[in-house]
């Protein structure tokens, strides 16, 4: 019980400790707020710009969720295809990896050519950057179905499709949810990159404008808001994971 409480407060202790150390470092070494503003300065900026930050943060949130939603749907589908055919899997891996090695920052201008400034480029960037881990994990989950389970079903006359849908997909769910935790932070990074150069609103856009205007505390305040939002989205996904695939965690505990 004691341990449980400790585990619950540890994140707070560590986080607060981190910021306190940072603040101290800034004060002791008298670091210029242009180089590294103290947390107090940043928090002050957060308060000062709270309306703008909230407005833009919500926009970024929507962009992220839309891109993430696309990535989930598309990632699941592609993962299912790749997981059930070793041939397609082997064939498309280099393309996927190659595409994934291209920095998405370089892709944003191309998206603007095609779709103009607006909500499309951030959403698409979020999608493009985050679908890869989902595909990989879903495909792995489906491809690693226990051969014995497959035997049981095949001896009953089950088709490949039956096996994928009855066993492969549910079995891949823990992998899928695991990948969502990675994908959501990536989607988030993607929509911010998209907004930086191809949107009139959003934290990414705010960030660029703030740094163009040399509002260093505002830059850091935006980064802080990004980090906090990222943690929240991660926590939500982790919670979804726990509640949707409890069987995966508990089956280990029972063993």
């Amino acid at each position: 019980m004691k341990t449980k409480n400790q585990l619950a407060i540890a994140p707070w202790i560590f986080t607060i400790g981190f910021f306190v150390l940072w603040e101290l470092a800034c004060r002791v070494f008298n670091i210029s707020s242009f180089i590294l503003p103290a947390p107090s300065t940043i928090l002050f900026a957060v308060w000062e710009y709270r309306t703008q930050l909230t407005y833009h943060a919500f926009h970024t949130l929507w962009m992220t969720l839309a891109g993430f939603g696309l990535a989930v749907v598309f990632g699941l589908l592609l993962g299912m295809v790749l997981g059930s055919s070793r041939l397609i899997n082997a064939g498309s891996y280099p393309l996927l990896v190659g595409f994934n090695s291209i920095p998405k920052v370089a892709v944003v201008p191309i998206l603007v050519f095609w779709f103009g400034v607006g909500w499309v480029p951030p959403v698409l960037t979020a999608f493009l950057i985050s679908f890869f881990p989902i595909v990989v994990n879903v495909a792995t989950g489906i491809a690693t179905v226990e051969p014995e389970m497959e035997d049981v079903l095949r001896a009953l006359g089950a088709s490949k499709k039956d096996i994928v849908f009855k066993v492969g997909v549910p079995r891949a769910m823990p992998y899928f949810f695991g990948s969502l935790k990675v994908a959501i932070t990536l989607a988030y990074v993607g929509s911010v990159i998209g907004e930086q150069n191809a949107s009139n609103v959003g934290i990414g856009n705010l960030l660029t404008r703030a740094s163009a205007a040399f509002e260093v505390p505002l830059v850091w305040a935006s980064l802080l808001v990004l980090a906090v939002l990222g943690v929240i989205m991660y926590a939500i996904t982790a919670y979804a994971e726990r509640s949707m695939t409890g069987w995966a965690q508990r089956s280990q505990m029972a063993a």
Partner: protein
Amino acid sequence: MPVFVDIHNVTHVYARAEDGVPAVENLTIRINEGEFAAIVGPSGCGKSTLMKLATGLQFPREGTVIVDGKEVGAPVKLAGMAFQNPTMLPWRTTLDNILLPLEIVEPHRSRLRRHKAEYVAKAESLLEQVGLKGQGQKFPWQLSGGMQQRASLCRALIHEPKLLMLDEPFGALDSFTREELWCVMRDLHAAQKVTIILVTHDLREAAFLADRIFCMSARPGRIVAEREVTFPRPRDLEITYTPEFSELVHELRGRIAQARKAA
């Protein structure tokens, strides 16, 4: 009685066997319709391979496999299987796990939705027979290993297969539960006249349940001895404590010991 499973002079090498040594070689075995056959043999001798051949999950390199009068060229679509490892799907309740074959095998597949209640009742009566009454709503990981194994037995039985393949299904059970399940299998076999092939390491189990016991040699597996079991049916657990029974087990031991030495 007609021959139901006819494996004739079969040699099988796994595609991934690095050494190319066959898993079974010149294997010939005939099992009659409605018969309860037990297969014993050392670990790795090819017992599971035999099962895979008989159900069409593997195709022999040489020889023929005929099941129910037809040469096997694809998975047979009528077999129920249960392994030592219960392979239950952890995201389905035990009941839903048991109903899984019905979602695949015709005619149940198309009837399942409309006649759900009927099938559920059947699954529950099976659960009761194996001593899991009322546990259907639990998830497999909430059951002990032995309970899971019993549930996987129900899954193998739910669609009333004509051929039942049991690969050491009672391995992880304590001797009581195991003996109870022997009786379940005995009654089931008496009631349904299904053909059963049981792989086991336990000679007493084989002696109590089977009509015939086949002994396999070490890899590459071949049938090296075959013993009719003549105890009258229905058999009572008490017979396992009779001197005749001890003698039969002792004799089987001797035969296998011989086969081992020869190899």
